[in-house]
């Protein structure tokens, strides 16, 4: 009797996450179609704003956030040939790191553009969700800037 058994096994739970002031302020900004970052100890404007400074471990000020543009430049990208449950698109799409104007770091999200058109350095802008609710998916994706 060498045949063995197997069966599908799913784990599913809607986690309820309290955001704290920094993440909350960033998400509140998204709901208002504004992107906020914070200046770290090295002088960089970091987006999304981390709660703590990577270099000094200091608490970063959630009440001194800096608004950056909703348009910026692609600093790296990859093609996702096999979209998975929960990702921004169901068809193959590109992931991008985008340095928004006014920011010094990259924001990770999806880009809606033909694969052939995508280049590092290309200008892109945020396509907002129709009804932002205060969630990272309020940014529906990036799209090429006109």
């Amino acid at each position, binding site marked *: 009797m060498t045949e063995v058994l197997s069966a599908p096994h799913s784990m599913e739970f809607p986690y309820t996450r309290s955001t704290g002031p920094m*993440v909350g302020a960033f998400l509140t900004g998204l709901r208002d179609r504004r992107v906020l970052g914070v200046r770290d100890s090295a002088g960089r404007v970091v987006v*999304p704003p*981390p709660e703590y400074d990577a270099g000094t471990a200091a608490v970063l000020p959630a009440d001194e956030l800096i608004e950056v543009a909703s348009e910026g430049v692609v600093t790296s990208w*990859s093609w996702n040939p096999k979209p998975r449950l929960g990702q921004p698109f169901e068809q193959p799409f590109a992931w991008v790191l985008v340095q928004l104007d006014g920011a010094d770091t990259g924001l990770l999200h999806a880009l809606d553009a033909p694969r052939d058109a995508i280049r590092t350095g290309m200008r892109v802008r945020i396509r907002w969700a129709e009804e932002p609710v205060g969630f990272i998916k309020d940014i529906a994706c990036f799209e090429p800037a006109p």
Partner: protein
Amino acid sequence: MRDVAVVSFAQSATRRDQTRNEVEILLPVLREAMAPTGLTTHDIGFTCSGSSDYLAGQAFAFVSALDAVGPWPPIQESHVEMDGAWALYEAWVRLQHGDIDTALVYAFGKSSPGDVARVLSLQLDPYVTGPLWPDAISLAALQARAFLEAGHDEKDLARVVARSRRNAVGNPHAQLSGDIDEATLLDEPLYADPLRMHDCPPISDGAAVVVLAAGDKARELCERPAWIRGIDHRIDVQALGSRDLSQSASTRLAGEKAGVGGRADLAELHAPFSHQELIVAEALGLDETATSINPSGGALASNPVMVAGLVRIGEAARRLSAGEGERAVAHATSGPALQQNLVCVLEATS
């Protein structure tokens, strides 16, 4: 620091294993690692393991795995929710106390029950990145692009893959091996552009076991022990957009602290994606012309998640003990796009 050495190493064949559970995979490997030492569970001073509950979707996976050891009468034991390389680090620390002379380290993991690339996205910050579910392959590909555009060529990636496949021919535990030239590899279509399928690791289930011993005990148990001359680990910030993805600052720092000094006869680098091997080698100052890199084929040939880092240390040590060199560097990684890295320098002399 007290001299501690790897005196024995064993690993399972790595493949999708749809018949055995983790305990069943681990048990024969434990036996194989213990056999040459003549030790039993009761002779071991400290036991430490590494694994992750999320791989197979069961809380407390390590609890049933402990049963494989036969921890009776009760043993001194600990567990890290990390790759087994960090369990080895904890065991090395424990051996420094001087009251015990041997330690057993094991790691196990089945990547095949779930979609491991998607499971790993649960490592990301759960507020602004995790909810997008970026999978591990997509993130590695973002890193690969940053690396390539920092002045590297895709031929470099193909060279890494070709060497891995070629080296893996001599490794009975590897999943992927063969004699493929670089041109053939570059003819294959892009998959997660800029990565091709062969730049990504296979899905592997497996277990690995290392026996450590200190001082005279190591010399007693092993003809040519692989002495740990330095071991250190460091972590970078997680957010991919906040680090220079074309380099690995934490690997560089860990390498300095571990005393790599750019010298090694061989190196086993835990690089599940081809470009990561080049990033890690560069951070450690290792040169392919002077150092045999991933003689086992590395993680591109088999990548049991939570195990593959420990395998690197085991493989490096095994080769030194077999006389393939006198000095080796082993490396393990954890987290998205090489976030956390461990470096271990080993030496063996006759």
